[in-house]
């Protein structure tokens, strides 16, 4: 919302400076977006009087001017055809910056004659494109108060700073300058002048009458409309002062009648519309549009309407879209002499919906959808008549109307101590009353330390006590609220994180220490990639995606992480290790949005190194990552089982899942070559996903740890090699060996896998190192033999393995 300083002063009697006003606006909740003072750019330029303009001796088109600048006479060579003796122009001294040409003016010679300044055209001053001649401040020869040396900005009327503020959606009352003035007055920056809306008596009956033709259940679409006719008006340009203000806030002056409607829209927040009465056939009627009806609007476009939209229609058809935009056909032109005025109230919600549907953004819609002061329908016809009669002459009819102005009067109470108990600052009751009354909330009763005030018609946003607290506080100033530390509920803070959140943090640490870099990628992906990862749930496909890359909620975190690896490879960084701890989405229910730690390792294990040659990443890198995460989050890693049923985006023979019984805690392995090809990635790429939500919560046994078992005897290591069928998983052999004597066997490590003709077809040899930890006494040879025999027997029994000779 833009307005000029002088415009504000039409409503606010104030001695405050521009700076004070600008500062206060933000602190009132009318956030200052900017102040632009056009005079600042014009400081170097002054009135110059041409004492004499004579022909340049060496150039036909140039004149040599003796210019009185107020600080001495200066010679200027000038090429303008209108330069003449006795002229008042705009003088720029040598050394000043000329905005229109973006040049620094220098002294010099032009065709052998000294020139020490310049007389400027409008274009050179940056005001317009006018460059036919230099600015003539007194074209008719009447100098008036002009004196050489006067600053130019006030003379050109360019000393009115433009203030731009952001208006929050609740403050429709400040979408007119008057509302802003009211707030500033309440805050002590001046006095609100009375609204100038004298009742204008009509001199004839309006030939056009308003009609409301709305179904019973849609009466609120336009509860009330008023208007009046004007006859014998002359619609020329509006006065210069009005044009200047409209231009200053970015509007294009059109004609007096149209400018009046725009001016009142910004001055009082009251959109108006004027019809050329001679182009209206029959009585203008408020009704709902019919399916397929069209209207050519004032913006030159044709809009197709539907029955949810309120329109103004006559026998010719649609003449306007209610609260949004008038129609072109009945619009006012320079030739208009008879006018019919519309001052309506439209339903904010319907106006917003229609405006959105039609894609029309207008100053009227902006105000109607935020809620208009219903009382403006009462004073609107008077204000409009005043301007029309003043600027266009003619006569005004009596006011005509249809419908009822809705009664929005209501009272809200405010306990005198509420500013302190809710707002944190004690404001004396008298001060509260004064603030509220300044804002237009008359306090109607004060009983039992409770203020009751009536809410002014222009504040639809005020509904309860908290709203009044805000009104008092913002005028009092938020800076007056004492800073109060939040009292602690306990002397020491309780843990902020849940176990689940701690796990995510632990997983992050574990993966960083595994050399992986953390990423944060989008939760949504393109449809083809989603399908690659088995997406088939329509409920998680966006209805209004903004790009084909972001359509479906990802069914696996690997989708976006693999894409990230691909982007890095495209940039020349093919060997990367990335991880993300983030959600995957199985459905739209809260429980279908699971936290996952996902890892992608692409390319080789590192750069080429003189001593540690890199190797391609393989499934065991991914398995190690998965186990590292599970260990970090406190999963019982010892009890994990491996299965070979990883999801289909993994290589079927080089992947697995880590389980606790039926619960899958993690999947790992090489990424399926088909997926890599589709994602344009060179393999092998390995990955894992750890489903953090599946990890059982820590057992609630407190923090106590079991006593350490530090046997005083040396451990003994024995090696075994078993020949088993190729199909027997190593884990099964390890488990069998370990289970042979749970008390004595501390650890079993698998240190070799061997396949060879000597073993026979479909056989492999697994070499185990078994660590025995005696607890009672040093192991005797017999005891050692006994446990060895048990190990061999167990592996034979469970895995069909034989000890290799």
């Amino acid at each position: 919302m833009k307005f000029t300083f002088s415009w504000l002063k039409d409503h606010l009697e104030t001695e405050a400076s521009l700076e004070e006003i600008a500062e206060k606006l933000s602190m009132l909740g009318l956030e200052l977006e900017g102040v632009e003072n056009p005079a600042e750019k014009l400081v170097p330029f002054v009135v110059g009087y041409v004492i004499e303009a004579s022909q340049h001796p060496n150039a036909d088109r140039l004149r040599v001017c003796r210019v009185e600048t107020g600080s001495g006479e200066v010679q200027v060579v000038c090429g303008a055809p209108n330069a003449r003796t006795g002229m008042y122009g705009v003088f720029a001294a040598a050394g000043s910056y000329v905005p229109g040409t973006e040049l620094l003016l220098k002294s010099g010679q032009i065709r052998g004659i000294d020139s020490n300044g310049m007389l400027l055209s409008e274009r050179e001053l940056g005001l317009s494109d006018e460059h036919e001649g230099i600015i003539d401040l007194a074209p008719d020869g009447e100098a008036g108060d002009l004196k050489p040396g006067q600053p130019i900005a006030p003379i050109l009327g360019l000393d009115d700073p433009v203030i731009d503020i952001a208006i929050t959606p609740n403050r429709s009352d400040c979408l007119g300058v008057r509302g802003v003035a009211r707030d500033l007055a309440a805050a002590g920056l001046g006095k609100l002048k009375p609204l100038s809306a004298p009742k204008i008596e009509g001199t004839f009956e309006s030939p056009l009458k308003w009609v409301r033709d709305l179904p019973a259940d849609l009466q609120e679409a336009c509860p009330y409309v008023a208007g009046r006719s004007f006859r014998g008006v002359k619609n020329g340009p509006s006065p210069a002062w009005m044009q200047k203000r409209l231009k200053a806030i970015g509007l294009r002056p059109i004609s007096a009648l149209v400018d009046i409607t725009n001016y009142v829209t910004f001055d009082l927040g009251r959109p108006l519309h004027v019809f050329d009465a001679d182009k209206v056939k029959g009585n203008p009627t408020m009704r709902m549009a019919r399916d397929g009806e069209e209207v050519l609007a004032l913006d030159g476009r044709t809009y197709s309407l539907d029955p949810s939209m309120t329109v103004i229609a006559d026998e010719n058809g649609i003449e306007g879209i209610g609260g949004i935009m008038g129609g072109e056909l009945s619009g006012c032109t320079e030739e208009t002499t008879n006018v019919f005025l519309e001052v309506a109230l439209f339903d904010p919600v319907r106006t917003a919906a229609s405006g959105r549907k039609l894609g029309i953004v207008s100053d009227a819609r902006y105000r109607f959808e935020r809620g208009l002061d219903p009382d403006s329908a009462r004073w609107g016809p008077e204000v409009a008549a005043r301007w029309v009669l003043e600027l266009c002459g003619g006569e005004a009819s009596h006011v005509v109307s249809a419908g009822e102005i809705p009664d929005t009067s209501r009272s809200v109470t405010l306990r005198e101590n509420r500013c302190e108990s809710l707002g944190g600052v004690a404001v004396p009751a008298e001060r509260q009353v004064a603030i509220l009354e300044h804002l237009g909330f008359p306090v109607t009763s004060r009983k039992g330390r409770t203020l009751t005030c009536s809410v002014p018609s222009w504040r639809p946003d005020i509904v309860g006590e908290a709203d009044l607290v805000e009104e008092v506080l913002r005028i009092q100033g938020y800076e007056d609220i004492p800073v109060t530390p939040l009292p602690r509920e306990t002397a020491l803070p309780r843990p902020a994180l849940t176990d689940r959140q701690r796990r995510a943090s632990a997983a992050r640490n574990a993966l960083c220490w595994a050399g992986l870099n953390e990423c944060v990628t989008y939760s949504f992906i393109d449809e083809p990639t989603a399908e690659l990862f088995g997406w088939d749930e329509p409920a998680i496909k966006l209805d209004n995606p903004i790009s084909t890359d972001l359509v479906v909620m990802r069914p696996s975190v690997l989708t976006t992480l693999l894409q990230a690896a691909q982007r890095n490879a495209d940039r020349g960084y093919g060997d990367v290790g990335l991880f993300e701890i983030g959600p995957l989405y199985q459905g739209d229910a809260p429980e279908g949005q699971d936290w996952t730690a996902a890892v992608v390792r692409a390319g080789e294990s590192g750069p080429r190194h003189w001593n540690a040659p890199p190797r391609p990443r393989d499934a065991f890198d991914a398995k190690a990552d998965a186990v590292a995460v599970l260990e970090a989050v406190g999963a019982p890693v010892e009890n994990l089982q491996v299965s070979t049923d990883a999801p289909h985006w993994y290589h079927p023979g080089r992947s697995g899942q880590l389980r606790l019984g039926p619960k899958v805690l993690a999947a790992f392995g090489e990424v399926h070559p088909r997926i890599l090809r589709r994602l344009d990635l060179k393999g092998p790429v390995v990955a894992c996903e750890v489903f953090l939500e599946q990890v059982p919560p820590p057992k609630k046994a407190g923090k106590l740890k079991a006593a350490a078992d530090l046997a005083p005897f040396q451990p003994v290591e024995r090696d075994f090699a078993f020949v088993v069928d190729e199909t027997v998983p190593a884990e099964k052999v390890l488990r069998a060996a370990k289970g042979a004597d749970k008390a004595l066997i501390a650890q079993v490590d698998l240190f070799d896998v061997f396949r060879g003709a000597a073993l026979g077809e479909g056989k492999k040899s697994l070499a185990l190192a078994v660590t025995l930890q005696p607890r009672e006494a040093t192991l005797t040879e017999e005891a050692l033999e006994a446990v060895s025999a048990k190990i061999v027997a167990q592996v034979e029994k469970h895995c069909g393995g034989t000890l290799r000779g």
Partner: protein
Amino acid sequence: MTDLDSLKSELLTAAHAAPDLAALEALRVSGLGKKGRITQLMKGLGGLDPEARKAQGQALNLVKDALQSAIEARKAELEEVELERRLAEESLDVSLPARPREVGLVHPISQTMEELVAIFGEMGFTVAEGPHIEDDFHNFDALNIPPEHPARQEMDTFYFPEKPDGSRMVLRTHTSPVQVRTMQSTKPPIRVIAPGRTFRADHDATHSPMFHQVEGLVIDESTHMGHLKGTLIEFCRAYFGVDDLPVRFRPSYFPFTEPSAEVDIGCSKKGGQLVIGAGDDWLEILGCGMVNPKVLENCGIDSSKYQGFAFGMGIERIAMLKYGMPDLRPFYDSDIRWLRHYGFVPLETPSMVRGL
């Protein structure tokens, strides 16, 4: 000079002169081995009478001890020489690169979230979470944003397909639904922060369709706007590490708070360089206010008894301001160069005690 003396002298000379460990070992064997000369002489003692045996035995023992000491001494000498020789041969070009041991880095969003938890945790807040795919009630209605509200229209919401009952799920446009869920499930007093992913259908240089927010909520019987100021001023100063950071509260509007405020922090933008701290400019960083009584009622909390404040801010934004990251988009691009440049070593979880 007796035979024994000359034997001793011979053996000791040989010991001192032994050129290497092998010669020394040969000498030990020839002197003290099973068939060594001293051993032989010891064996011969049996044939002597007790007196002579004793005397001769003592003499032999002296020779044996002397030889043993001489061998030990020479061995140490030779080992020292051998070590020196080896050391002279054994040299590495230690300027060669060591075997790589890479540590990955924490994403700035995670780091910032941990910092937020550290600060607000210290003030007694716990961390709450909620789903990203939300229903209208939690994302809008409960927060006093009815369907026709301009704020709802301006939020650029991502929608999911309409269900048979006409309802539509949305991607949460803010983390406020977590506040709603917390109020529905927890009896006051409440003190939570809710950091997490949020989504808006907007994509340009300064907007990402997915970004992160943190919101805070305090509900009890007496928390007022002074506490809101106290909490957020402390937060801003702790987070940016500027003790005298100016913090300004301006009236504003949010449907879910009343009164509402926007918070600015002091900064200077001289020479195009943004510096957070006392300066001649302000930078808006968060929105806040006292929870609107309607929101409390919508969440089943008695607004005549309970009150409190809420606040919210963008995590990327405060990270960019604190760490001088100029652009938003690279946060989600996973460019390894960016991750390595702006990431954080996972050495220490942020904490107020250690410093942020």
